[in-house]
């Protein structure tokens, strides 16, 4: 199956450590060392997580600087949130039509001998 860009973003965020890294980068750029500090894992493990995040387009690293701080690409992160919101809005639109329909039809299923319209149940 072809992995589309959005799937890479979602998959990158499927891991709790990576979500945590993203949340911390939202506050500002940080180096790999700074990012690794709170975790009980090796620098390599954190680098591995960053590689996945980079592959998804969520974070970038300056290539030539000594510190090579990690930077969150807020646009990509926002875009994903927007896609979820759009999906949700489509469901809401659908359900609003269902609201209208529910209002328009009688409570009881129409039978051969249907009760008078508006009769109390």
């Amino acid at each position, binding site marked *: 199956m072809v992995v589309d860009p959005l799937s890479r973003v979602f998959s990158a965020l499927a891991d709790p450590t990576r979500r945590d890294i993203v949340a911390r980068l939202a506050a500002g750029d940080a180096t790999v060392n700074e990012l690794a500090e709170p975790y009980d894992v090796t620098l390599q493990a954190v680098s591995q997580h960053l590689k996945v995040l980079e592959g998804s387009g969520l974070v970038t690293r300056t290539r030539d600087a000594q510190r090579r701080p990690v930077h969150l690409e807020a646009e990509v992160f926002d875009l994903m949130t927007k896609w979820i919101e759009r999906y949700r809005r489509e469901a809401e639109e659908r359900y609003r039509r269902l609201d209208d329909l529910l209002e328009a*039809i009688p409570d009881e299923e129409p039978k051969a001998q249907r009760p008078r319209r508006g009769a109390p149940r």
Partner: protein
Amino acid sequence: MNTSTDGTEIMVDPDVPLVRITREFEAPPEKVFRAHADPDLFVQWNGPRSTTMRIDRHDFRTSGSYRYVHARDDFEAGFNGCFHEIRPAELIVQTFTYEGMPDGVALEKLVFEDLGNGRTRLTSTSLVDSFADRDAFVASGMEVGVREGYQRLDELLAVDSGR
């Protein structure tokens, strides 16, 4: 990730490839259920606004099956699945496949919860077998805007990787 503003809540689970949508209705469970069970009613509200829906088959019973088509201009999208378990006013368990991706299948569970006073909470959970498939669902909305959406994302990611 949870978002909600106008009644419909969505939960995109980070650990399991599922999407859960919750919504309350000003109608008793029997009635909300009927809007799913009766094809003449179902066709009136399901599907995106910009498309017309045609139901080819709606054999609404346990072990039954369905097929419908959403059409817009020159674009048609077919969907089919089986009704795995149906309990009136309580539960629908069904499969769901977009025919453009015939190997992909979602397991859907619709729970109709009686809130009393003629109100119902509908919880709709779609589970697929990979995050990629789940995200394709969310990303595409399954029917509309797929191409332009991916184009936008591709453009954005292309700019990023160009650095």
